[in-house]
């Protein structure tokens, strides 16, 4: 798990790519885990009443799930120093088919003195980017 070597990272290199699916079940599970019970994340009627196409994924679920492939890959080699995103597009989650997302992480910047690496995450749904300025900074031991 902790085979990632800071010294071998190269700016511009894509280090992790993964597809993942969010279902309505995922949203209910995240609501319980996080305490965010906003009904637009589990009731279509409420979502539509505020002008949305239907139930949306929690932005924080998308943010959390987008980081997980990188966190798993880093293992014990480093810890997260900073993580930021901008929520640019909603992710509607179909009751039957869910929503397929894809994430890729590219080395955006390296600081050899501080031993930190910035990974830029590209997160897309239906061919469009859903998170902007999505940057995860990892501090290596």
């Amino acid at each position: 798990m902790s085979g990632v070597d800071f010294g071998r990272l190269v700016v511009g290199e894509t280090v992790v790519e993964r597809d993942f699916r969010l279902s309505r079940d995922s949203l209910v599970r995240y609501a319980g885990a996080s305490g965010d019970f906003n009904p637009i994340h589990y009731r279509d009627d409420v979502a539509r009443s505020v002008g949305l196409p239907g139930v949306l994924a929690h932005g924080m679920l998308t943010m959390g799930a987008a980081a997980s492939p990188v966190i798993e890959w880093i293992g014990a080699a480093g810890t997260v120093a900073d993580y930021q995103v901008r929520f640019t597009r909603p992710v509607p989650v179909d009751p039957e088919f869910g929503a397929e997302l894809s994430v890729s992480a590219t080395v955006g910047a390296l600081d050899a003195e501080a031993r930190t690496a910035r990974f830029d995450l590209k997160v897309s749904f239906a061919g469009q980017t859903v998170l902007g300025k999505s940057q995860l900074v990892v501090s290596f031991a």
Partner: protein
Amino acid sequence: MVNPDVQGRVYPPTDPYLVGREKVREFARAVLSASPLHHDPEAARAAGFTDVVAPPTFAIVVQDFTLQQLLSDEEAGVDFSRVVHGDQRFSYSRPIVAGDELIGTMTVTSVKQLGGNSMVTSSTDIVDAAGAHVVTAISTLVVRAAAESTSEEAA
């Protein structure tokens, strides 16, 4: 429209939140992370932590208590049904681990009006039982104009 006078307002510190091992595991499953550091105390100890390590977005659980203070502040005038999440950031001094007792204190750092929408940025400093900084959580909430909805921005 959000009251611009709440800019600079500091809310009282939240009650201590005790981070439980099962809560960390539950949250990690919810964000689809299988890293042993979130699930296996032995793996976490081998990596130098006292217990399982929370995923980076876990701090939202504590930050949310402070956001609720803002949402329930009648003077602030934030209409929750019109709130969408604009952006989010976590800046860590160290990871959150099970057993931590965390206290959040929020400051409203900025209130801006933009095309009928209000944008409220807040910064929550989260410290441990010793008072040492763990993470600062920064959110911008967009409060959509009452007259028309802009569904493109919801998250």
